[in-house]
């Protein structure tokens, strides 16, 4: 009778092991990509052909279907990073490190997109590309924080050490997120207050709300897909670095 000595891994432990994580989540990427493409196809069809033009803003209202989801993601991605930072600091979870690192450029891209589309939308409706309004300013600050985090990651050679230092900064920078959320209530200057998630229900008509929600899920799944792919890439990149170092030291295997 032989005794089975191979370690039994629970799914939680498997998630903590980079190689196992890749094996476990690899099958998810194709369905996620398909789902994202499907949602975008439906969302864009709704946005362009099956939703009314606004009676005041005309066709420019369609910018909203990109602007609002990217703006939501600019904050959601930061929340993902902050949760990963806690996971990295408290449990030293190796995948939390990786997820924190790969989310930063994605968040920066979504934030830049939200600012860009907002600017395009602001020109015809508000008459200005840029105004130092509370929400715009705080979102710009968020973009700078994202870019600072990316720069900080790149400044370290040792990525394990970088993770812990970046985690501290990520949590400090998280102060900005509630400021962005409530900026429209504190400084009611130009940007409109919350119109979708309100205690008394959304202030938009259903014909606009449906495409908005579809695009909302499309962009969210785009983030999830890109994030997972980026995590896989990062795991492989680290493995290659390790192999290169071993080869440089003349070790075989």
């Amino acid at each position: 009778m032989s005794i089975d000595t191979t370690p039994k891994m629970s799914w939680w432990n498997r998630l903590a092991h980079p190689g196992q994580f890749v094996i476990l989540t690899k099958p998810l990427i194709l369905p996620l990509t398909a789902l994202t493409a499907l949602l975008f196809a439906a969302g864009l069809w709704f946005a362009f052909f099956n939703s009314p033009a606004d009676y005041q803003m005309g066709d420019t209202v369609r910018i909203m279907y990109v602007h609002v989801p990217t703006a939501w993601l600019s904050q959601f991605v930061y929340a993902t990073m902050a949760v990963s930072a806690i996971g990295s600091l408290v449990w030293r979870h190796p995948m939390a490190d990786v997820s924190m690192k790969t989310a930063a450029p994605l968040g920066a891209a979504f934030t830049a997109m939200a600012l860009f589309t907002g600017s395009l939308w602001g020109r015809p409706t508000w008459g200005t590309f840029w105004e130092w309004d509370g929400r715009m300013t705080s979102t710009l600050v968020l973009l700078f924080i994202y870019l600072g985090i990316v720069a900080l990651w790149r400044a370290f050679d040792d990525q394990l050490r970088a993770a812990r230092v970046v985690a501290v900064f990520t949590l400090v920078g998280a102060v900005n997120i509630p400021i962005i959320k409530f900026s429209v209530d504190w400084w009611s200057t130009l940007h409109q207050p919350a119109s979708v998630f309100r205690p008394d229900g959304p202030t938009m008509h259903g014909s606009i709300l449906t495409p908005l929600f579809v695009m909302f899920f499309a962009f969210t799944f785009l983030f999830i897909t890109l994030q997972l792919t980026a995590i896989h890439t990062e795991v492989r990149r680290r493995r290659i670095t390790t192999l290169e170092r071993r080869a440089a030291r003349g070790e075989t295997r």
Partner: protein
Amino acid sequence: MSGFVSVLRREVNLSLRGGGEMLTLVLFFVIVGAIVPFAVGPDKVLLARIAPGIVWIAAFLAMLMGLEKLFGPDRADGTLGLYRLADTPLSAVVAAKVIAHWLTTALPLILASPIFALLLSMDLPTFWRTLVSLLIGTPALAGFGALGAALTVATRHGGLIAPILIAPLSVPVLIFGVGAISASGGPGQTGVATLLLAALSLMVVALTPFAAALAIDWGED
């Protein structure tokens, strides 16, 4: 507590005997203010209007200049490693360094700020308000500065990254700092801005030593 005091004394002494670095910083502060009239034109009305902003920007830039010497030399000669092992908690050491940083960079700048009143033709009430807002607000800049220096101390080219990290965090300090001087939002606004600036300063000075100590501790092996 004695550890805290001796670190504070050591830092201040190092700055005072460090070959006039403090005066160079003051000179930098004054020069930043002095080149603005060349860039925007010597219009006295315009200069008086933007003077509070110029003073704050000059102070912000000058305080960024001194960041690299906050932890860099200590790390290079191994003092930082000893601080990590010492009985005095690292956060207390960082707090002492924040206070010393403020005493040796911000305080000289504030003492030099009357020059700005002359150069930028500020009136006396505005100048007093500027002095008060600098006194209240610069501790927050010192706290953020220590955080930025701590985050980047283990990197090779941290000197460039620290300002990028600190600048977005310092935006509220600048907003309320300038708001405490110029009553653009009505007569009651300056008082509110001053109180918010004070609250911000207290929070930052109280919390950043802990965050900075964590960053230093985890940045080393």
